[in-house]
């Protein structure tokens, strides 16, 4: 038991010591604009968190820098540039849409375009002349439909779907 009590004591001291002085200079709460900028910057020492969200000392300093720069009359752009100059383009949470980084932004667009193209080819290939079927639900029916017909058609479809699924299942058992 003894070491544990001692351990607890040491820990309490540690805990009380750790944060002491952190608030020595009372940090002014950030303006909404500063918060936005801080949220657009990566905290360089902690993986995956923004400067706004990080608890590290560096992020805290960066937040203060952001606020100071804004107070000094820098524009948002200038604040971003300041950080890019110091830390490289990786500091931006949103990679720029220029140069090499265009590959990041365009690859998904090209991907979806290729996907759509493949799909289009598939549809074009498969879409051979269809013999006129007389199935009611498949009907590319005329526009003048009795509304009641539509509803009952729909009901028929549902009932048939249900039956169909029943029998499909039956077939499997």
């Amino acid at each position, binding site marked *: 038991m003894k070491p*544990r009590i001692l*351990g607890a004591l040491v*820990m*309490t001291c*540690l*805990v*009380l010591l750790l*944060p002491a*002085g*952190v*608030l020595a200079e009372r*940090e002014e*709460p*950030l303006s909404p604009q500063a*918060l936005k900028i801080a949220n657009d910057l*990566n905290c360089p020492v*902690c*993986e*995956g968190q*923004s400067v706004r*969200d990080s608890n590290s000392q560096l992020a805290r300093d960066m937040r203060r820098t952001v606020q100071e720069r804004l107070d000094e009359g820098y524009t948002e752009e200038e604040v971003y540039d300041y950080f890019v100059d110091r830390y*490289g383009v990786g500091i931006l*949470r*949103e*990679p720029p849409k220029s140069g*090499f980084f265009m590959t*990041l*932004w365009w*690859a*998904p667009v090209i*991907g*979806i375009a290729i*996907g759509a193209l493949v*799909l289009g080819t*598939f549809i074009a290939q*498969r*879409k*051979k002349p269809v013999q006129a*079927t007389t*199935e009611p*639900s*498949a009907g*590319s*029916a005329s526009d003048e*439909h009795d509304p009641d017909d539509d509803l009952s*058609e*729909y*009901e028929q479809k*549902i*009932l048939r*779907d*249900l*039956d*169909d*699924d*029943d*029998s*499909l299942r*039956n*077939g499997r058992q």
Partner: protein
Amino acid sequence: MAELGSGVLIVALLLSLYGFAVALVGAHRNIPELVESSIRATWGVAALVVIASGALLYAFITHDFSLDYVAGRSSTDMPMGYVLSAFWGGQEGSLLYWATVSTVLAAIAITMHRKRDRALIPYVVMTSFAINIFFLVMLTMITSPFTVRANVPAEGMGLNPLLRDPGMMIHPPLLLGGFAAFAVPFSFAIAALVTGRLGEDWIRAIRHWALIAWGVLGLGLLIGAWWAYHVLGWGGYWGWDPVENVALLPWLTATAFIHSVIVQERRGMLKIWNMSLIVASFILAIFATFVVRSGVLSSVHSFATSEIGPWFLGFLAIITIGSVGLLIYRIPGLQSDRQLESVVSREGGFLFNNLLFTAMAFATFWGTVFPIVSELFRDTKLMVGPPFYDQVNGPILLALIILMGIGPLLAWRQSSTSLLFKNLLWPGLAGVIATIVSIVMLEHILASVAVGATIFAVGTIVLEYVRGSRARRRSTGEMYPVAITMLFRKNSRRYGGYLVHLAVAIMALGVIGSHFFQTERQFVMEPGETGEIGAYQVTFQGLENRQTADANVIAAVVDVARNGEHRGTVEAYRFFYRNFEDQPTAEMGVMTIGIDDVYVVLDRWEESGTVGLRVFINPMVSWIWIGGGVFVVGMLTLFWPNPKPSRSRAAGPARKAVLREA
């Protein structure tokens, strides 16, 4: 326990090798006895791996610190729940857990299907043994959870503080379990490819297994989001962190699969595509296991760094090359039975669904690996964060929600446009009205469009239930409540599926609300001071220093009021765990008032009692958890056994044929 654990794992490895060989010979020489023997070997392997897991659990319960894994992850002062969850708190235990789930599920699946899918089974057995062999080699030779320490410490290190949370007791097992469960459909897919039996058999066999893997993984992701929201303290639940992304990838491809498989069942189309999706889901599940456990893509989860990377990469390469090769070889046998007749059809809807889901998977994958690409080719370190995913995946999600509203109203083969427009009338009207009302109320165009799209999708679901039950009432004369129940009982797949759609819509509203309308303020406060954020007032009452068995806790007590009316008290915590004093963790004070979450983060504090607080108002986040509940109910409905229809069974195939041709 160490001897028992490592002993049974070695025996399990040997038995797996035996089972693989016997299945191979049995299948080739057509000796049923050997195949039967290999089936029994799967039971043996499952039992042995379960014993190994039991041994590790026992070591945790008895605080056997002679085991390196136990000493490094637990301690006597931790609550028993966390001691047990330390089982999957590290790489070795996670892999053992993975192996346990996959061997047990494989044994169950193989036993269930051994009669009906006799031709496939030997190859299913072989594939699952091949997977087992890889994991058992890892567990016995590379990264054994049963490594013994030379000198036994009196006390263990304790668990990584981030994992000491109820969310972490269930999130990792569900996620890893979901990954491991993809092994079953993958084994059947490979068996179908090897044997060339590419008909309906394997699809029918794996549908439920794919659904299990998909559902468990989905639930795991949701609980992960819940954990992040309560513990990580940036006010959000999904950070597009690399590890989150790779866990999402197999879920996306599996979601595409559970939709497109319906097309194959009904119309005999998309066979190559479905096969590819299942293979891709398994490969991505392995990739996810590998990424989480190797730290290749550094992220907040990178505490699980290790040396197993190359092994996993090799395994990944083998299964990728192997299955893609098999797939290409079998393409001639995977031609569609029927042809697409019209784009405006249910099939067409599913095709667009698949395009969108795979596009999202691709974009997410690309964003996740791009930092590596950039580092390799440009020597530029960068992080692809939420802005990228918001801009790329956001529109895709919006399109998916709109499609969710249209898809169910499309008829198979070909929809008559006039009927389609007629069906779209009411949901569409609801969507338009919702958009207009939202624009007026929220003054945010994008969010309003998203709300409108979601309401449109909800409208379609409601319409489907109303019409389904009306049709039943007309034909059977049942009361509406009975009719709705019967809809679920008769066709749980369809109406359970709509329930999942409804869950997605509820979650979508939650995401829209919290994404577009989150507000945040930071306060530096003395005890007794009050800060104002929106309609809410937060009063800092004071700091409390508490001591639990394994941690020192700092709690900030905060009163929450809305428009001056006191609504309750929340506490935001910081935990300093023994041995991890330099990694304080947190728990946020969250109070749900109406649709808003008041979310209080304790940032900093002084001896004098002054604190730095960050307060968020997160609208609608609670809807995400409600949606999660509906998701679970919908999923269970999907598994609800359908009663046998009263019609004679003999009519089944004939009816089916008639209806198919009709």
